[in-house]
């Protein structure tokens, strides 16, 4: 397989230009986690009922479950990554990653449970902060928003500490 990866500076510049387009043509910043919160609202309907979801302050006010710009952007992101992977033969069903296996061994259930928990934690944090790596990290920072830079710095520091604790040792047996 040929190396499908592009120069990271080029990719960054293109993402920067993409956000210039979304800001100017659609009046929208790049963002991910609002759409995920809207999707969470749709997934909560079987448990809480349509009324329960509609009555919730957050889903009613900030993250209305609907097919709108934010949720369609998520769908697009998945399609784009799939397209890229298919074009370079990079699509593969797997859970393997070197850093994880080095510290926690090859067990797939263990990796899946950790990823699930990580997912719960990351989206709760993203909603509490009102943005994620794209909404705060890219869109916020590039507008020189104080909230964006605060998010970027604290997220980075917390990530360094967590990586030290989680991946600082080698898996035995």
């Amino acid at each position, binding site marked *: 397989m040929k190396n499908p990866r592009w120069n990271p500076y080029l990719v960054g510049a293109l993402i920067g230009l993409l956000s210039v387009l979304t800001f100017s043509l659609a009046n929208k910043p790049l963002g991910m986690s609002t759409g995920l919160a809207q999707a*969470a609202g749709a997934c909560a309907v079987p448990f809480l009922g349509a009324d329960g979801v509609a009555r919730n302050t957050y889903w009613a006010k900030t993250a209305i479950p609907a097919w709108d710009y934010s949720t*369609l952007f998520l769908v697009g992101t998945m399609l*784009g990554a799939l397209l890229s992977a298919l074009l370079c033969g990079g699509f593969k069903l797997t859970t393997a990653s070197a*850093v994880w296996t080095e510290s926690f061994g090859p067990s797939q259930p263990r990796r899946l449970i950790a990823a*699930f928990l*990580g997912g719960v*934690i990351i989206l709760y944090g993203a909603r*509490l902060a009102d943005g994620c790596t794209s909404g705060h990290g890219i869109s916020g920072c590039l507008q020189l928003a104080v909230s964006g830079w605060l998010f970027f710095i604290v997220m980075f520091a917390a990530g360094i500490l967590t990586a030290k604790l989680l991946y600082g040792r080698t898996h035995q047996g």
Partner: protein
Amino acid sequence: MSPSLAFLTGPELLGSALVFGIIFGFLLHRGGVTDFDVIVRLFQFRDFTVLKVMMTAIAVGGVGIALLHGQELAQFHIKPTNLLAVGLGAAIFGVGMVLYGYCPGTGLAALATGRLDALAGLVGMLVGGIAYALSYDWVAAHILPVGAYGKLRLPELLGVPEWACYAGLVAMTLGIFALVRKAEAKA
């Protein structure tokens, strides 16, 4: 009011969301940032791909949008500086990112390339979103108001002119890239 270039509305706006998303997802995958190892190794200072992508996007997008904003062709969308909520949320996010191995966007993109751990993480993210919505009234009463400074930008906070802040952003970005180069040469 929308800026004068923002002609995308209604169904065209929805269609553009798909197109912009496809470009974004394509770029994330080509940039290599849909890879668990690439993301986690950033936090171990062993792989700087994510930092290169993000900082270049911030510098290029920042200068581009500032130029358009100066001509009133683009609007800013500033998220409020709620010190406790953003600080605490970002700390929780950092922990989650290293455990999950992706951020919300790169996780979705990774899932689309067949990563099953990213799929488990998506289920987790939906649960996390439900948990946040259910706790929102309490959070809005007790966390969001602490240190709420509104839609604050660095030029106001630092009392520095716009152009100087952007010059500083570009200089800082180049400085970080020089340090990264040095660290990569040593490794």
